[in-house]
């Protein structure tokens, strides 16, 4: 049997950071990822933060990867504006929350996980190779056996011969199978989770700059609360990427169970909001139906010709509206000048309209639909995130930050990963992998993390930023609901005492007061109606159906179903018919049946199913993430 020092299970940003950090410490580690390549199963909102906490030291992404991170990593845009919108129909009231975004922050970049994790993987693999380790993708871990005598673990997978390791870092996400196999924790409950759904919308780079008044490579985060939530606890977001927008919605799972709505309907509610409509619009070629009376091969020829022209038009347009890319085209000698690109672009367009009757309309283009569960660290973080020689990090340990609009996961996972790597490195040096020396050490290191504090306590300074930002909101809207709280918050001294008291009470007891329908729905709607500006839309977006969205996704279909329905008649499963983001369930004769191959492995149904990730290389293959 082959032997290695450390196995990291899961190639998301936390697992990759662990591998990189272990290599930085000159330790041998192999990372095993189920997706056919790194990043293909990762989804995020997403913004990646680097923090400078007053509460202690956090390990940031740039500490792990070095200066090269800011120079070369495929980051989308540096977020410089952060705005919260309250919505009600066509009314929007906006509050600038940039100060909250900047709080304790070095930077925040919008990111797309597919690209970013691929870059992390390149970096980590190169380092790991020097110490006899590396990254292995397309491998799904199915079993871990602890060898009491040797104090090691035997890792079994669906694809490879089993191998032996001294320690394991479980970075396999919110639906961690390692946690289940090892019995380290129970599955997270709906009350501990949020469900996020996102679409990536394509828009050329320069158009984004102009529309959002951004300098090159600068970005903005727009947050939404109010009627877009269709009465759920949570909210929506629009983040600018380099040449795409991430439009998404994140809602508390409990509130979805209480009032089940299809996840895509929640994203659609965002897309239909007039302000967002105007954010996402673009010039879109619209095909005319091909004459069915033509011979079949002629129909096919025309279809192929149109597809090819539209593809060329899109590619060229993307370059034309991007300084970097158009310069590159000219430099490569393919075009003499920028004007020539424009001419070619116009000529393709003319060909499409004249020859093939394609018309160009104002609409939007969706590139990818995705979904994921997000653990609310306040409610579900593992109190001791280890089991024997297995250390849990990031989502797998239930460690995500949810404080009002502040949702952070990637940076938390990276911080955990560094702590786990450091703990294992120390254990290797002393060849001591006992719970006392490894697990407990890691557990206390995580406990010291400022992120853990953010999951336990209210930060009075952060709260003040909110109060300041919302000072223009008429008091009566808020006071009807939160008068006591408001009084306590009215001056710095009282607030300080009140928060101290609140923190003794603990988040768990205070949550229902704050994370309520009032906060996320009613108050924003009232604010929008009373104070909001009217935004009107100039077109009606053609929103794809869920079937069209699934058809666009790439799957490597697995003939072995990875999910088994355990309670086909339970209330929960019946709600799943609505709550599965890709409509994998249907109700037939009072039985819930798993019927679709479009599973995107979000885990929404894992509560009452026998749920596993797909085997190696199988299942969803995201292009953006």
């Amino acid at each position, binding site marked *: 049997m082959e032997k290695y020092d450390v196995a990291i299970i899961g190639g998301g940003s936390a697992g990759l950071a662990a591998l990189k950090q272990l290599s930085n410490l000159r330790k041998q580690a192999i990372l095993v990822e189920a997706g056919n390549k790194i990043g293909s199963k990762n989804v995020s909102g997403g913004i990646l933060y680097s923090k400078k906490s007053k509460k202690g030291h956090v390990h940031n992404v740039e500490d792990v990867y070095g200066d090269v991170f800011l120079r070369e990593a495929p980051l989308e845009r540096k977020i410089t504006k952060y705005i919260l919108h309250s919505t009600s129909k066509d009314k929007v009231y906006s509050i600038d929350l940039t100060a909250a975004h900047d709080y304790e922050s070095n930077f925040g970049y919008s990111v797309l996980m597919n690209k970013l994790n691929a870059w992390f993987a390149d970096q980590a693999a190169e380092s790991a190779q020097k110490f006899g380790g590396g990254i292995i993708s397309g491998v799904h871990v199915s079993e871990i056996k602890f060898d009491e005598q040797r104090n090691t673990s035997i890792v079994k997978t669906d694809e490879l011969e089993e191998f032996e390791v001294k320690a394991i870092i479980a970075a396999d996400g919110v639906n961690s199978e390692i946690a289940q196999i090892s019995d380290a924790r129970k599955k997270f409950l709906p009350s501990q989770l949020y469900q996020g759904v996102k679409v990536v919308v394509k828009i050329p780079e320069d158009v984004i700059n102009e529309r959002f008044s951004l300098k090159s490579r600068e970005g903005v985060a727009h947050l939404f609360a109010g009627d877009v939530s269709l009465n759920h606890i949570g909210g929506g977001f629009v983040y600018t990427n380099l040449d795409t927008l991430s439009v998404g919605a994140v809602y508390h799972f409990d509130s979805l169970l209480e009032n089940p709505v299809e996840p895509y309907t929640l994203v659609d509610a965002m897309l239909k909001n007039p302000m967002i409509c105007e954010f996402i619009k673009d010039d879109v070629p619209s095909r005319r139906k091909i004459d069915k009376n033509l011979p079949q091969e002629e129909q096919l020829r025309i279809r192929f010709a149109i597809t090819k022209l539209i593809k060329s038009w899109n590619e060229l347009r993307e370059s034309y509206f991007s300084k970097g890319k158009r310069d590159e085209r000219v430099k490569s000698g393919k075009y003499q000048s920028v004007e020539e690109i424009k001419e070619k672009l116009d000529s393709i367009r003319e060909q499409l309209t004249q020859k093939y009757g394609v018309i160009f309309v104002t609409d939007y283009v969706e590139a990818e639909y995705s979904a994921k569960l997000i653990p609310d660290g306040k409610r579900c973080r593992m109190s001791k995130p280890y089991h024997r020689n297995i250390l849990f990090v990031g989502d797998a340990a239930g460690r995500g930050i949810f404080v009002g609009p502040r949702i952070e996961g990637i940076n938390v996972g990276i911080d955990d990963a560094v702590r786990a790597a450091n703990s294992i490195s120390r254990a290797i040096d002393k060849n001591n992998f006992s719970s006392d020396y490894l697990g407990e050490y890691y557990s206390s290191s995580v406990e010291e993390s400022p992120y853990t504090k953010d999951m336990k306590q209210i930060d009075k300074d952060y709260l003040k930023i909110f109060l300041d930002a919302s000072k223009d909101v008429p008091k009566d809207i808020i006071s009807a609901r939160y008068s006591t709280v408001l009084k306590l918050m009215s001056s710095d001294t009282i607030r300080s005492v009140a928060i101290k008291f609140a923190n003794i009470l603990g988040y768990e007891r205070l949550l229902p007061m704050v994370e309520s329908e009032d906060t996320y729905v009613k108050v924003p709607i009232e604010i929008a109606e009373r104070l909001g500006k009217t935004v009107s839309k100039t077109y009606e977006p053609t929103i794809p159906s869920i079937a069209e969205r699934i058809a666009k996704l790439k799957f490597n279909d697995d003939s072995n179903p990875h999910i088994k329905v355990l309670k086909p008649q339970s209330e929960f499963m019946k709600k799943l018919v609505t709550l599965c983001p890709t409509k994998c369930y249907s109700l037939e004769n009072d039985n819930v*049946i798993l019927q679709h*191959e479009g599973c995107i492995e979000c885990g929404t149904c894992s509560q009452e199913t026998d749920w596993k990730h797909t085997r190696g290389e199988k299942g969803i293959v995201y292009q953006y993430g």
Partner: protein
Amino acid sequence: MTEGNYQHLYVIMEVEDGKLVPVSLEMLGEARRLVDSFNRKYNLDEKVVAVLLGYELNDISQTLIEHGADFVVYAEHPELMVYRNNIYTKVIGQIAQDKNIAKIISSEDSNFKKPRYMFFGADNIGRHLSSTVLVELESGLASDINKLEINDIKLTHQHKTDGKEVTYEKTLEMYRPDFSGFLWTTILCLDNKNHSIEREYHPQSCSIIPGVFEPIEPDKKRKGQVIEYTTKIDQNDLKVKVLNRQVIKSEVDFDRYRAVVSFGRGIKDAPEENIRLIEELAKSLNAEIGVSLPISKKPFSINQNLSAKYMILERVIGTSGRKISPMLYVAIGISGAMQHVAGMKDSEFVVAVNPDENSPIKDECDIFIKGRMEDVIPKLVEEIKKQSFVIQA
């Protein structure tokens, strides 16, 4: 060309597990038709020669004669029991150039060098075998043919005829459907009559797509002669050792059937009963049974036997399963999802049975029978029996 150098049509038989591969008889049928009209047209008496390699295949020679072979050249040897490219190529090469065989076939002395024409099956054996044999015989080969004619062809060609008009007599026109499926490319194998590169290219040969041509009605009274060929085996040609042969799929074989009956989630009201009905329909049409992808995910709990037999990926027709093109495709309770349509759209004739006239399958079929399968299938089966289909496997 000296008349007599190149004569007869040699057809290479394929045998698996002691039985003829169907394409062998299909090729013989087409060979018979072609040679008969050839002999009439040119007033000649050339023969259809079946070339059979193997071991203990005595009964097969008679079958070949009944199916149109004038002669069967049978090379029997234990080393020829299983196809191996090297030794098969050598033996066929020897047979094709054997003057003694030609003498028996032509019943006279001749200048025989090689066959005039040669056919192989366009399958896992024949494609490769034809390629190597034709290098051995230094002539041309057209692959994947589905139509054949013999004509005299007038041609002016820069290389072949040095730009002059030349008539190529008795030329085999070999039609190959191209990759798009829209076009037929006709391929000829021609001697170089240009002096600077003069060369003779015979046999004119091709590999023939299985399932295209019809075998002739077997005739027990047909006369033919078996020529036992004593094979010269060179140990150098036996380098490949077959260690093991394992059948990996026994249940489902769409290619063997001309009709396919498929079912989808429409069976849901009474899965077991409906599958029984579908089995009956498939039996009456001599059809293989297919399913849509969702069925393979076992959406209904039905008895183990039926589940293991039908709710499996091997039967799936569509992008995640098999692409098929039977003569008749019957879709029962299938809505017609894109993925499924991709697997069956090349079928010649499509019949759908579905209660919902708005389901997309309606746009993908030739006949749409509106109705519940429970009601429609028994009537179809009854009517099929009434109209007494005679369908070959």
